[in-house]
Each structure stands twice: as structure tokens, then as C-alpha cells.
């Protein structure tokens, strides 16, 4: 009986106040779209990190004959120095973080440089002008600094280079996009809460006669308040559904339909990621409505 009663009240409330309900749904839609976009961007960043960091290496450049770095005062790296550096990586206290070490010989380094050089500038180089490079693969690429600290000061090490630096610009761009989306989402959420608060207040005022009678005949406070809370929650959930649909369409047509075709070497977020975000968006919508209700109802439907 009570459920039927509450459902009837909610339906009547939404019908009588349909424009307000629509505006609540729309503002929730926009704010949750930003929240969802921020979440998907972060998922994209994580996905790229997982995919790319697995392939990147730390490169330890050993001293070339003409190097002037302080570890290279004795000239080109010696075999003894090289073995000591290898020993640190493979048996020292960073050994458990190192997955593998590949020693790229002078000749291989030379071949790679020449192969990549279209201009011919490096043609006059000889393999003897270069030094071997140690390509180190780490279990966890984030541990780069530890490995760099352990090796950078060793005699014979000219420099240590982390390929992750290549991606940092891209990641900081994506992170900025996330922050922007999150800030916009925050502003829109605040707007949503204020709008839902106003809606509930209007709804409660327009049904004062009903709620007064309910109080008078001894209806419980929760029964008096439930229709208003559910009304706000229903409208906000409508907005969340729209946001999920919007994100789904954006991923399907923009990411999967266009980006994947034009920039194919990147692994993109997919529609399944939208489904992963969806329950949280609905929860957020209900949460918004609840916060707004709590802010309002105490004053308008007192016991």
C-alpha cells in the first residue's frame, strides 16, 4: 500500500513539475557527462601506460672516447667498468627490479644510427667513436629512478636515459584534460545540487497542503519525504542515463569509429569501459539527489 502510494505521489509530482524535472535531468546529464569523460580519460591514460611502459627501456649510455662527463674522465668505457655496471644491474641491490639487460655493441649502435640517418651526417662516424649501450628492461617501469640512481654515478656511465620521457608530454596533456573535465564536472555538479534543491523546495511548497494533512494524521516523516527524494532521484537518474548514452555514442562513433581508423597505433578505451563507468554515474546521480534532499527537506516537511 505504501509503495503504491509513494509511487503514485512520485509520478504525480514528476508530471505536475515536468519542466523542472526535465531541467534537473539535463543539468545532471551535462555534469555527469563531464564526470564520465574525466573517468574515461584517466582510463585511457592508464591503458596507454600499461601498453607502452611494458615496451620502454632504460638506456644506459656508456662513455664514448670523446665524452667529457665526469664519470668518463678516463676516456672510453673499459671492459672492466662495463662488467661492474652489469654486475650492479644483475646482481646488485636493484637486480630484483631488472627484468633483462641487453648489451648493444658499438657495431649495433653504429648500424642503428646509420640506418636511421637519412641525411648522411653520421656517415663519417666509425663504430670506434661510439660506446656500447645497455638496454635495461624493468619489471615495473615506474622504478626507473631507483635504477638510474644506482648506475648513474658509476665510472664508465656517460648518461642514463628513460624512454618514458617521450610520453610524458602526452600524459601531461591527457592529465590536464582530465583536470579540466573534473573541474567543469565539479561546477556542474554544484549547479545540479542547487537546481535539485530548488526543484524539491518548489515541489514541497506546492504540495504543502498534502504534507500538512499527512503530518496531521500521523504519517511518518520518511513517508512524507520519500516522494520528494525519489522525484529528485528519478530526474537525476534520467540525467545519468542520458550521460551514459552520450558517452557510449561518443566512444562508438568518435573513438571506435574515427580515432581507431586514423591513429591506429594506440589502444583506445572502448564501449565496455563506458559500461564500467555507468554504475558509478548512476550512483553519483542518486547521491546528488540525496544531498540536495537532505539540504532541503528538513525545513519544508518538518515533523
Amino acid at each position, binding site marked *: *500500500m505504501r509503495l503504491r502510494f509513494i509511487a503514485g505521489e512520485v509520478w504525480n509530482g514528476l508530471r505536475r513539475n515536468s519542466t523542472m524535472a526535465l531541467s534537473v535531468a539535463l543539468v545532471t546529464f551535462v555534469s555527469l557527462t563531464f564526470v564520465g569523460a574525466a573517468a574515461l580519460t584517466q582510463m585511457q591514460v592508464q591503458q596507454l601506460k600499461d601498453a607502452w611502459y611494458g615496451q620502454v627501456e632504460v638506456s644506459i649510455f656508456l662513455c664514448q672516447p670523446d665524452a667529457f662527463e665526469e664519470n668518463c674522465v678516463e676516456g672510453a668505457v673499459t671492459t672492466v667498468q662495463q662488467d661492474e655496471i652489469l654486475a650492479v644491474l644483475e646482481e646488485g641491490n636493484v637486480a630484483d627490479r631488472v627484468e633483462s639487460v641487453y648489451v648493444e655493441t658499438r657495431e649495433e649502435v653504429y648500424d642503428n644510427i646509420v640506418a636511421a640517418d637519412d641525411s648522411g651526417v653520421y656517415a663519417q662516424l666509425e663504430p670506434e667513436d661510439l660506446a656500447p649501450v645497455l638496454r635495461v628492461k624493468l619489471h615495473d617501469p615506474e622504478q626507473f629512478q631507483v635504477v638510474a640512481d644506482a648506475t648513474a654515478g658509476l665510472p664508465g656511465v656517460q648518461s642514463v636515459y628513460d624512454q618514458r620521457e617521450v610520453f610524458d608530454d602526452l600524459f601531461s596533456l591527457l592529465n590536464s584534460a582530465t583536470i579540466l573535465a573534473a573541474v567543469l564536472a565539479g561546477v556542474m555538479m554544484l549547479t545540479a545540487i542547487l537546481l535539485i534543491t530548488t526543484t524539491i523546495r518548489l515541489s514541497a511548497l506546492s504540495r504543502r497542503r498534502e504534507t500538512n494533512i499527512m503530518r496531521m*494524521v500521523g*504519517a511518518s516523516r520518511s513517508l512524507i519525504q520519500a516522494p520528494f527524494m525519489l522525484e529528485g532521484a528519478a530526474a537525476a537518474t534520467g540525467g545519468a542515463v542520458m550521460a551514459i548514452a552520450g558517452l557510449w555514442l561518443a566512444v562508438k562513433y568518435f573513438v571506435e569509429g574515427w580515432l581507431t581508423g586514423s591513429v591506429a597505433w594506440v589502444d583506445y578505451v572502448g564501449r565496455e569501459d563506458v559500461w564500467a563507468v555507468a554504475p558509478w554515474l548512476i550512483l553519483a546521480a542518486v547521491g546528488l539527489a540525496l544531498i540536495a534532499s537532505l539540504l532541503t527537506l528538513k525545513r519544508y516537511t518538518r515533523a
Partner: protein
Amino acid sequence: MIRFDNASKVYSRGARPALDGIDVEIERGDFVFLVGSSGSGKTTFLKLVLREERPTSGDIWVAGRHLNRLSNWRVPQLRREIGTVFQDFRLLPNKTVYQNVAFALEVIGKSRRDVKATVPEMLELVGLAGKERRLPHELSGGEQQRVAIARAFVNHPPILLCDEPTGNLDPGTSVGIMRLLDRINRTGTTVLMATHDDEIVDQMRKRVIELKGGQLVRDQDRGVYGLETV
């Protein structure tokens, strides 16, 4: 049934008290008129009984409950034991007679079967059988007040509070309403009625409690409206 023990109510600090040291006891099954001019404290008295307000000092018991100690979430339980009727009827304009009375049962969680059984019985009691499907604006003032009484009494509360129930009605219609309240009182329901209607008070010859400036100035069995002026 209702007991005020040196109860006072001051709305804002420094102001004259709306009720000042009231001591009164109303027994089960009593019919009591609460009289006094506007601002004498009648409405505050009713609000205290309903626990819409709390006393500033003193104690109040209603239907076996000590209202000073009643927590907010228990107030609905108290109100289910008190029916309330107002001067302005307070019906829901878009609901029929039947729906207005049923509403009071629905919101306290009565089953559909209970509602279907009780509402027609109650409409019969107040003399509105056959008018179930009318909307309030299709009824006369007296009939609207009967709907309001049916709604207040449909749950058979032991106490019925009436705040100027005949204030908007002509004398002939008022008599009908008073007969109805008297009938309800005879079922054992305690009726407490605030009124300005001296004719009715004089005719009914029930207990009269008179308030003046927030103080109880008269408590008389089988009293009349304006004893002091007679």
C-alpha cells in the same frame, strides 16, 4: 487523557507568554469547549497537545505519553491517536470525498482491504453516503466539514481536536456538525473543541475551559460561553 501540569509556552524570549502556568486535566470521554478571545492561547493549547510545539516549562501528557520526553520520530504515533478538524476544512481539492478520507488511512499504511471496509462506514456515520465521488468544491460548507471530520475520525482515534469547526458555517449547519461531534463523543472519544461560537457552547452545556491572556480563568462543568458577562 490530556493533562497539563503547570505548562507554559513563551514563543520569543522576553515576550508575554502565550500560555502561562496551565493546570488542567481532561478525562477519557470528556467533551470540552476551549473558549477565549483571539490571542488568548487557544491555538497554542491545541498545538501543544499535537506536539507541534513543546512547552517552555511544565509537563504535558497526552494519551499516556509524556510529550516533554517524546522523541521526534515518535510524534507520528501520537498523531495517529488524535484526529484534527479545522475551521477551513483542509481537504485536498483534486481528490474525491472517498479519496480524501482514504488518504488518511493510506498514509499510515493501512491495507487496501481495511480502507475499503472503513471509509464507506465512516461516510455513512457523517451522513455523506452516496456522495463518495464528489469533489470538495461540489459540496456545501457543512458537507465539506463532515468530510474533514470523517477523515479525522476514520482511524478511530481516542482524541478529537476541533479548532473552530463551525467558524465558517451558518448557525443551522453548525448545529448539524455539533450533533455529529456529540455522536462521536458518545462512542467514548474525547472531544476538545476551541470555539468562539457562544450559542453552541450555551446550548450544549458541556465542560468549558476559558483562557484569557494565556491564563486559565475558568474551568466549569456544564458551563456557558461568557459567564463573566452574564
